[in-house]
């Protein structure tokens, strides 16, 4: 592709190896993994291999990986499944104000079912107040759900400290982590976090759409959302999508290998991008955490006085693709709940863009994107002078 695709937090292009594997699986291993004949057994084996690959990247036991159709389903299964299953023990749930909509809307839904929910506010960098967290957790708190890396501004939440607070205050409170934006890019530490449930999605790590997983620590009490044939240890019925799961497994392995080196590569991309923009002299500011403290693959910038959508379309003409708000809501031009949560005011709220990188981006693309952004910003400002 000419130009630069910098919307990798919305979705990523699949790895070529992943596509090769998927077409082979689709062709040769089409059997139903639950069938007991040869075609079934060989399909089952493919899924087992994928499960092992995903488990290895997460550093967990493979039996604890429940495959789903994506991150949204994984979050729904974790949150609704844990809340409902543990209702006898308590009706209180905790999350933050800047989660992905699949988490926030689960909480809203559960509130309608009679649960009580606390939404922890975040500061300008997207950080929650740990004392407030500690204060919120009580004997009736059955679940805390916290995003690892925020998808719009890249805040990395201090999950080890959060986990310690949760488990010290109430050892029976379950801890769910939405790791959709960090899995196979940053190092995940389920044990150190004392997490019980972790959501991941395939299409954010150069795997296919329509696959994801929920890690369910052994013994975690959870109700299924889908009933039926009892696949995935009874937690997720439905014929398994063998090809997509195989693709997910391989994508996890490829994206998750040499993580340290890749983090450095992301850091270089981000630093270069910011440096070029600073050199250009245009007026912009960084939303959320300091760039060096945030996830290396996400940066959210505000361009005062400019409408984000106009800038987005101007960049698009140069084949530079970015996003305003998160993808799933970017068709509804309401200001982002994340940017509102970190306290951005009107002008910046509607003048912010997210740039998100992947391991397939190179420095040339970054330089091009910085140049096109500069040109577009200058052009738009000249129009409205």
């Amino acid at each position, binding site marked *: 592709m000419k130009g630069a695709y910098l919307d990798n937090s919305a979705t990523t292009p699949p790895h070529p190896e992943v596509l090769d594997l998927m077409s082979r699986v689709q062709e040769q291993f089409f059997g139903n993994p639950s069938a007991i004949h040869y075609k079934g057994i060989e399909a089952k084996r493919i899924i087992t291999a994928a499960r092992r690959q995903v488990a290895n990247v997460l550093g967990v036991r493979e039996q604890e990986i429940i495959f789903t159709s994506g991150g949204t389903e994984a979050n729904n299964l974790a949150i609704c499944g844990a809340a409902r299953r543990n209702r006898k023990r308590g009706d209180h749930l905790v999350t933050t104000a800047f989660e992905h909509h699949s988490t926030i809307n689960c909480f809203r839904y559960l509130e309608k079912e009679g649960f009580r929910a606390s939404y922890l506010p975040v500061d300008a960098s997207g950080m929650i107040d740990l004392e407030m967290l500690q204060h919120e957790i009580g004997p009736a708190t059955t679940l805390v759900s916290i995003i690892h890396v925020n998808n719009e501004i890249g805040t990395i939440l201090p999950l080890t400290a959060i986990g310690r607070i949760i488990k010290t205050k109430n050892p029976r409170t379950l801890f769910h982590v939405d790791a959709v934006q960090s899995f196979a890019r940053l190092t995940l530490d389920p044990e150190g976090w004392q997490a019980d449930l972790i959501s991941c999605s395939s299409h954010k790590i150069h795997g296919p759409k*329509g696959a994801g997983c929920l890690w369910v620590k052994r013994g975690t009490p959870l109700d299924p959302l889908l009933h039926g044939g009892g696949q995935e240890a009874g937690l997720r019925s*439905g014929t398994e999508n063998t090809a997509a799961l195989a693709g997910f497994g391989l994508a996890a392995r490829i994206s998750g290998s040499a993580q340290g080196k890749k983090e450095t590569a992301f850091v270089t991309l981000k630093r270069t991008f910011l440096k070029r923009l600073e050199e250009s002299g245009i007026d912009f500011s960084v939303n959320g955490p300091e760039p060096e403290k945030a996830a290396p693959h996400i940066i959210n910038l505000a361009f005062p006085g400019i409408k984000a959508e106009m800038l987005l379309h101007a960049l698009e003409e140069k084949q530079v693709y970015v996003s305003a708000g998160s993808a799933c809501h970017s068709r509804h031009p309401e200001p982002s709940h994340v940017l509102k949560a970190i306290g951005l005011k009107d002008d910046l709220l509607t003048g912010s863009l997210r740039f998100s990188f992947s391991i397939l981006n190179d420095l040339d693309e970054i330089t091009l994107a910085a140049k096109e952004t500069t040109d577009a910003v200058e052009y738009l400002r000249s129009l409205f002078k």
Partner: protein
Amino acid sequence: MSRRTVYMDHSATTPVREEVVEAMLPFYHELFGNPSSIHAPGRTVRRAVEEAREKTALALGAEPGEIFFTAGGTESNNITLRGAAKKRGEPGHIITSSIEHHAVLDVCSELAAEGHRVTFLPVDQYGRVSIDQLQEAITPDTFLISIMAANNEIGTLQPISAIGEVARERKILFHTDAVQIAGQLPIDLKKLNVDFLSLSAHKFNGPKGIGALYVRKGAKVTPLYSGGGQERKLRPGTENVPGIVGLSRAMELAVAEIKDKKKRLEALRYKMITGLMAIDETILNGHPEERLPNNVNVSFKHVEGEAVLLSLDLEGIAASSGSACSSGSLDPSHVLRAIGLDHPTAHGSIRFSLGWGNTEEDVDYLLEVIPRVVNNLRRISPTYRTNGSRKE
């Protein structure tokens, strides 16, 4: 090793057709965008999703706005049943049949545990529900009827059109699990009084992990998942675009070829049934005529179906006993018990399901292999001897 392989388990799942793969491929490569993104890569993909919706609607006689893409048949069924119950709010009455797929039965059992009343209609020896019994089961608080269009184990077709009439008259929502019938027999939603219809692409030579739910305009359910606003909020989550495109292409192909395929499969089915019934003490399960063109389900008395399956597998023939998803379990199938088979007979049943790619030679090969397999197993069967039946 040039072992002959014959795949006769198309009701469990089907291979994806070349044309379908071709249609999907661009959406893995250059068209990988997220359909919710407002930039050009996103918009192009959004258009493809909407075109797929139009094609799917056209194939079913529905409006595009009535088609929702899901992650498969199980999810479509779960969304409908749980969503209709949730929408209603207060406890009520649901009517289903005793031979539904677990993706309906188990949700119904859950709903019963949560306070709804559920009637599981019995079926006759062929697996058909009776319209009279349906009428009698209806009470003032009945809000949903869920009856499958075709059964996945014995292939029996239900009188969907008559059930729809009853539902319309009594103002009750009607859902049909059409996972097995889609792509096999024509579905015209303009003529059927159906409010919800579930289907799954991997049963008609499309990809796995993608399904559709038809929701008649005006019919309402509460969504199962919360999240972004995808699929007009009924099914949030980043869309499985290649899957959606694959489903619509597979549907288009299936519908275009439906008449020829039906004729071809019925001829193969006839030959198979005739051949299998020539083995003594063999019973045909399901309805003699009102059945899917691709389904053959027989019980060989005095043998274990699983043993037959394994022997067939060694000969390169893939078939199934019970439905795929419960093959791991030892309980005889709930469907075979519902049509009145005793345990030993149910245990001796095998489902052969034909599909795209099966030939007359495949059937010849099966008919050549199977008498030997069954007779070998019967030779070591205690009941076969004590019955004093003929020995070889």
